[in-house]
């Protein structure tokens, strides 16, 4: 006898969210990755978000897969289909299912209370019973239960099992017994739902052709790949969530591409420092000595590195800092996302310091901007901050395939060769010979005439120690000019115009991009005209000033409590403060369009205006 699933709801094809609730440490990541990849392989654009605790084993974790036929890249904020695998969070999961949605749970232990919502259909599949009957080993049972729900979801939504089978084969290669075991588990879930439910859910997965030429990759991996292609040879780091996978990626790619097959020699060096202070010090030492050097970290690391950052700024040493931002002051929420280090990075370290920041919005930009970061750091002989965040860095994003131009040559900046030094009458480290505020530097070991003393103490244009007021100011003023000039070297902002006469606009940054673009579509449908500028670099390009100037009001959308991008705009552009209205989200979750739509709508309503 078959249960009846209510299918009276509106059929949604390739436009809904599957959210899987689980316990961390149970190996659900590979099952969830498999689900998402299979949808991607069916040609359906997907967004995957991992919501995980700062814990190794035993706490709740969720994985969201948004099928988005329209290609939106943010969370939707809805949950049409929740696969509840963690009894601890059943109640919370049930409450979260969108009206008309579905909740699948393990009915080995029936839970009538999960059928309590009239607008939600609860589906019981006795996963544990099925898996326990088929597998002996305790750990295997835990892992295979995850695969069993993949099968159940496939059966209920129309996900192509052949696609899953191919992925499982790729995953396990020649390990036939693992392929068989996993497919057997998937079959358990699949057969059960086919046998017990009359038809699939009104949430349907159907083949599309929208993912060709795309890949699924996380931003940390893409940034690591960028470091390899940039020719970075030295990385120092101290493990910190959410930046760790960047160095893991760099190491893996270097082991693949940078090891001499004959000698085993490695054309890279990775040092795990004793702390962040040491890590940035090492990167600075390597940068001083002419290696492309970087350190990946997160906000707490930037705090610790600050003294050294000022040293590299004033001593004019190139170094790239990857700040994979996470939420909060102090330890905060290490596994949640924010863009909350913007002001910290912009002015990091004591005294007068201003830095160059790059803001990627997705893994594609992570790859490209990683390369640019090294070029800019060496061109401007200064620390460069690559400002990504946990959402971009650790979640898999669908992006166009990465491409590389083999004619690329790194911009190593103004470094004198031995011959050039020999031909000079005298070398002075901080002399602005070319009038571009960038002085030529020399590398240790090149030539005795090129020797100089790098110091964080007061120095004059010759590189000598000074306490003389005028001499001191000459160097500081040149640093300001140098920094301002970088506005034309950082990636230009991306401007999206609505095509109508807009009086208002949005400025945003990094990981908010997908949510902003989706919100703009909703506004357009409602006749609200908004243009959009996405900042990609600091110091701000002149276009940012010009853009703000064109509107009566500009909404600054960002994920932090204090409106840090807005503060920077107030500080570093001519924009009048009242024109910039903060639209903020700082709950730590990857952005969804809701806070933008609600925030801007509320503002317009209060004004009695509809833009």
């Amino acid at each position, binding site marked *: 006898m078959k249960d009846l699933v209510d299918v009276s709801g509106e059929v949604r094809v390739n436009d809904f969210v599957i959210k899987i609730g689980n316990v961390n440490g149970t190996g659900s990541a590979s099952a969830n990755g498999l689900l998402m990849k299979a949808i991607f392989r069916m040609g359906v654009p997907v967004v995957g978000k991992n919501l995980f605790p700062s814990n190794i084993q035993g706490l709740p974790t969720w994985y969201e897969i948004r099928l988005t036929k329209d290609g939106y890249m943010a969370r939707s904020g809805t949950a049409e289909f929740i696969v509840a695998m963690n009894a601890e969070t059943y109640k919370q999961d049930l409450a979260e299912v969108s009206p008309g949605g579905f909740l699948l749970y393990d009915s080995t232990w029936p839970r009538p209370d999960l059928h309590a919502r009239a607008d939600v259909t609860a589906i019981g599949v006795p996963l544990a019973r099925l898996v326990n009957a088929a597998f002996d080993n305790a750990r295997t049972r835990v892992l295979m239960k995850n695969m069993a729900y993949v099968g159940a979801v496939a059966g209920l939504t129309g996900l192509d099992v052949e696609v899953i089978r191919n992925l499982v084969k790729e995953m396990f290669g020649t390990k036939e017994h693992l392929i068989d075991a996993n497919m057997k588990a998937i079959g358990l879930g699949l057969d059960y739902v086919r046998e017990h439910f009359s038809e699939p859910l009104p949430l349907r997965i159907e083949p599309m052709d929208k993912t060709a030429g*795309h890949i699924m990759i996380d931003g940390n991996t893409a940034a690591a790949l960028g470091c390899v292609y940039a020719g970075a*040879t030295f990385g120092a780091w101290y493990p910190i969530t959410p930046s760790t996978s960047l160095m893991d990626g760099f190491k893996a790619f270097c082991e693949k591409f940078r090891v001499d097959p004959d000698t085993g020699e490695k*054309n890279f060096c990775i040092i795990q420092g004793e702390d962040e202070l040491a890590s940035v*010090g090492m990167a600075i030492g390597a940068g001083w*000595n002419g*290696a492309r050097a970087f350190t990946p970290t997160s906000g707490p690391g930037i705090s610790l590195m600050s003294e050294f950052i000022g040293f590299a700024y004033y001593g004019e040493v190139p170094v790239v800092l990857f700040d994979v931002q996470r939420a909060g002051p102090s330890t905060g929420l290490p596994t949640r996302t924010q863009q909350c280090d913007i002001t910290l990075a912009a002015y990091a370290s004591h005294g007068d310091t201003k830095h160059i920041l790059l803001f990627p919005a997705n893994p594609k930009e992570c790859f490209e901007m990683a390369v640019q970061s090294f070029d800019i750091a060496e061109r401007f002989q200064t620390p460069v901050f690559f400002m990504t965040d946990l959402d971009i860095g650790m979640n898999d994003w669908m992006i166009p395939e990465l491409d590389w131009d083999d004619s690329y040559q790194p911009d190593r900046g103004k470094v004198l060769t031995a011959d050039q030094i020999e031909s000079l009458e005298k070398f002075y480290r901080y002399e602005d010979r070319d009038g571009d505020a960038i002085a030529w530097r020399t590398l240790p070991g090149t030539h005795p005439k090129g*020797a100089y003393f790098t110091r964080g103490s007061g120095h004059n244009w010759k590189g000598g120690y000074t306490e003389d007021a005028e001499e001191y100011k000459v160097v500081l003023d040149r640093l300001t000019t140098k920094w301002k000039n970088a506005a034309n070297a950082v990636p230009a902002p991306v401007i999206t115009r609505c095509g109508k006469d807009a009086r208002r606009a949005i400025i945003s940054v990094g990981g908010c991009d997908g949510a902003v673009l989706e919100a703009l579509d909703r506004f357009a449908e409602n006749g609200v005209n908004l243009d959009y500028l996405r900042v990609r670099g600091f110091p701000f390009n002149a276009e940012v000033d010009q853009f703000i100037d064109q509107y009566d009001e500009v909404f600054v959308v960002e994920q932090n409590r204090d409106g840090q991008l807005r503060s920077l705009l107030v500080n570093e552009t001519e924009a009048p403060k009242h024109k910039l209205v903060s639209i903020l989200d700082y709950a730590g979750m990857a952005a969804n369009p809701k806070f933008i739509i609600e925030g801007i709508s509320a503002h317009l309503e209060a004004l009695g205006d509809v833009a």
Partner: protein
Amino acid sequence: MTSMSKPFIDKHLPKNKLGLSVRNYEGVMSTLCAGCGHDSVTAALVQAFWELDLAPESAAKVSGIGCSSKTTAYFMGQSHGINCVHGRMPSVATGANAANGDLNYIGISGDGDSLSIGFGQFAHAIRRNLNMLYILENNGVYGLTKGQFSAAADYGSKSKKGLANDQMPIDPCVQALTLGAGFVARAFSGDKSQLIPLIKAGLKHKGFALIDVISPCVTFNDHAGSTKSYAHTYKYYHPLVHTDFVAHADETTGAYDKDGAMRVTMADGGELFLRKTADDYDPRDRAQAIETLLMNKSEGEIRTGLLYLNSDLPDMQAANKLPKIPLNQVPYERLTPGKAALAKLQSRYR
């Protein structure tokens, strides 16, 4: 620190194999107090480099903050130097060394820089067996901030104002030994004949070489009651192991052999001769070195010389399998996988 250059006249001075006089190994004028032990160390460094015929540009000087750290400006003016932040020189040296292991790295630090704010970095540079000569100019006191005790001040030692130190000292040599350093020496700035060969040997040692140099502070720690004063050091200082270094084996080396000295061949062919003053002391025995130092400490003795040597440990470059060409000189073509590899790599992300 100063930028004041000294008048350069060296016609009458002997030249080394590179045709350079000691003057070519000097830096700008020292601004330390007259009689400062650190200036003696600087002079010993100049002499050692000159005697070793080292090209000035082959050296890189690294330091942190403090009186000792300032001295990197006072020697080897034709070598690059980096004077970074307080206590963090070892990390800068680590990165610099990774970028180019062909240079001779000389780190100058003090007891404040290494044993308080930089204790962690000091320890971890040793653990990495960073190939560098690390000179710790140890005077037991903070000079630039006018006389506070450092972590190297002995228990009961008196400050200039007459207060006794009530905390136990950190002995950098004992620490280095426990952390696995392969070259641990102690010297006294007042004994150049001992210090110069130690500097040479430390430079030639492939790995981390520590020389803890008792270097009295004439202004803030040279009074009666201080255990880091010139008078105290002269009184209690006893070389335990006499060290001589010969860069290339020649006719003089035979004399050492007859002398019964322990002969150690360094990585680049230089010869090190160790003459022990005590028959039962073995500078290859780490445990004995630690025990001796701890016992000496309780007796108030200051034992000096090359206290421990182990040249067999792989340095950071070797441990990381770094290439023969320094990383900062590897051509870009060898670093980029190229367009085709990127296209191929991405099949795993589809």
